[in-house]
């Protein structure tokens, strides 16, 4: 065991590389991912690593009960709960390439919404098949499910999930058409205040439930406009999005708006806290998140 430390890392990675290539050449399928890169895959991937929590969740959904195939996940992957105990490869923004390699994956999933392209390229250069998906809006999301299904050899399940998602969205749209759209400020952070612009799927989430984002005109994902422009645009509802475990921070954000009683949302007591773990994960749980959002805006 002690002699293992003396194996030069270069040689070690070479051995690993050869190993990966060997499994690859047995049977090759080709797949074009969201970035247009064609990736060669084995028929039945059995060692899967997911580089973002949302990907872990989606892959688990696709695999249904067969979660043992997932051998590595990114930090904070906690849904379904069984994934919390899978080996972590670090945070999605800066995962450990060596850790990924050491798991001998035959399929790695990455997303443009968080993973660094440089790191993905490194993995590919080391011979790891990486399938990249996009996660910026609902149609990206549907395309991702199809791509993920294809990569896993589970096309049918993928298409089923897309159908399920579409049906869910359609239900919201039907209700949305019957409503007078409320004007919404969605707040993600404080000092500086962070909200949602039209580049984020959260903007689409707001319009899907029939509301209107007061900063939907801003060409950014998460812009930081001034508080005074919030007063100027005077939303009907303020939704403070609660993320993570520290609830107090978000309650304070809600309380802070009370200092501006001339705001319509404050006057009519429509500053609301929204538990958003389901909403911000682009997986099927988003439907659940959307109905929470719908209730927060229209209850």
């Amino acid at each position, binding site marked *: 065991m002690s002699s293992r430390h003396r194996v030069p890392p270069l040689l070690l990675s070479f051995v690993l590389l050869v190993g990966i290539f060997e499994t690859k050449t047995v049977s090759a399928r080709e797949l074009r991912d969201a970035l247009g890169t064609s990736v060669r895959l084995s028929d039945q991937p059995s060692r899967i690593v997911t580089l973002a929590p949302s990907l872990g969740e989606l892959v688990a959904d696709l695999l249904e009960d067969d979660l043992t195939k997932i051998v590595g996940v990114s930090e904070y992957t906690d849904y379904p709960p069984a994934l919390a105990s899978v080996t972590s490869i670090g945070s999605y923004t800066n995962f450990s390439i060596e850790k990924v390699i050491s798991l001998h994956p035959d399929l790695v999933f990455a997303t443009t919404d968080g993973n660094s392209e440089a790191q993905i390229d490194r993995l590919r250069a080391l011979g790891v098949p990486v399938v990249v998906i996009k996660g910026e809006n609902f149609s990206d999301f549907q395309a991702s499910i199809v791509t993920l299904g294809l990569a896993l050899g589970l096309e049918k399940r993928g298409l089923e999930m897309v159908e399920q998602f579409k049906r869910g969205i359609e239900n919201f749209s039907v209700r949305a058409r019957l409503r007078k759209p409320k004007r919404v400020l969605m707040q993600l952070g404080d*000092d*500086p205040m962070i909200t949602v612009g039209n580049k984020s799927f959260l903007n689409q989430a707001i319009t899907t439930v029939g509301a209107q984002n007061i900063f939907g005109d801003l060409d950014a994902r998460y*812009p*930081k406009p*001034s*508080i*005074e*422009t919030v*007063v100027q645009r005077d939303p009907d509802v303020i939704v403070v999005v609660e993320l993570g475990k520290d609830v107090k921070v978000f309650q304070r954000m809600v309380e802070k708006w009370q200092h*501006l009683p001339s705001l319509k949302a404050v006057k009519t007591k429509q500053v609301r806290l929204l538990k958003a773990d389901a909403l911000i994960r682009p997986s099927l749980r988003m439907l659940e998140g959307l109905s929470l959002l719908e209730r927060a805006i229209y209850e």
Partner: protein
Amino acid sequence: MNDTRSTLRSYILAIAVWIATFVVAMKIGAVTDASVDVLVELRLPRTLAASAIGAGLAVSGAALQALFANPLCEPYTLGISSGSALGAVLGASLGLNWMFSGLVGTAFLGALLFAGILYLISLREEVGSLTLLLTGVMMGFLGTSLVSIWLALSDANGIQAAILWLFGDLTRVRLDGAVFTFFGVAALCVFIWMRWRDLDALLMGEEDAISMGVEISSVRRRLILLISLMIGLCVSAGGMIGFIGLVIPHFVRKTVGSLHQRLIPLCAVWGAVALVVSDTLARSAVRPYELPVGVVTALVGAPAFLWIMIKRRGIR
């Protein structure tokens, strides 16, 4: 007699301009017919804090320039601001929340520490003013890079907050904090102003000062303490705002001369005017967004710094 009258006139002019910019700043904003809560919650704290911090930085700059006998000294170039920011950030990460309505206690200590180091270095005889200035610049880099360590380790929200510290920002100021800063700065300005004779003497150089009966080391100690408190207060309220302390004393000196009896009060008022104007620009230039106010002061201040340096044709 004539001199007193012109001094009086320059005071009245400065205060009138300050009141005018204050009123204009309170009127300008995204909301055109602002209600009372917008004025009191959003605009008044900022305008009041901008006045206080502008005054504090300009007076600190004038005093530092006398203390080091170098017109390029100011809180920002000497790195004292970044010491203060470091203190604030370290305090936050160590959980030392000595907060008072948006002001940070550890920022005082940071300013005091960096000013103290600079002071110890300045005690060495062979250290000229250029060396001292460069030392300050380097300490500034050191402070900023230590802040960056914290930045690298914190989450996205923490990074946002730290960036605002580094660029200077007045959006966080609450009304009670602004009132406290205003009176704190006013008191420290008076204390510094009361030492105008010492400051005049220091500006003439140490030997002359000694021959005039000034006890150099105790004067320096007291001034460093007062200036550090002032910078600590300003930075803890608004982050690192550069160049006010450089540009304002320079232009005020041009109009009323270098005697600190007049220089200090006028620096205070014009500093207030400059930062109120900068902050109004910062919050109205790129609506619906806001710029950190330090970006605006640096855009004007950095070229001014170069211009002053070139005009002096070499500093020793």
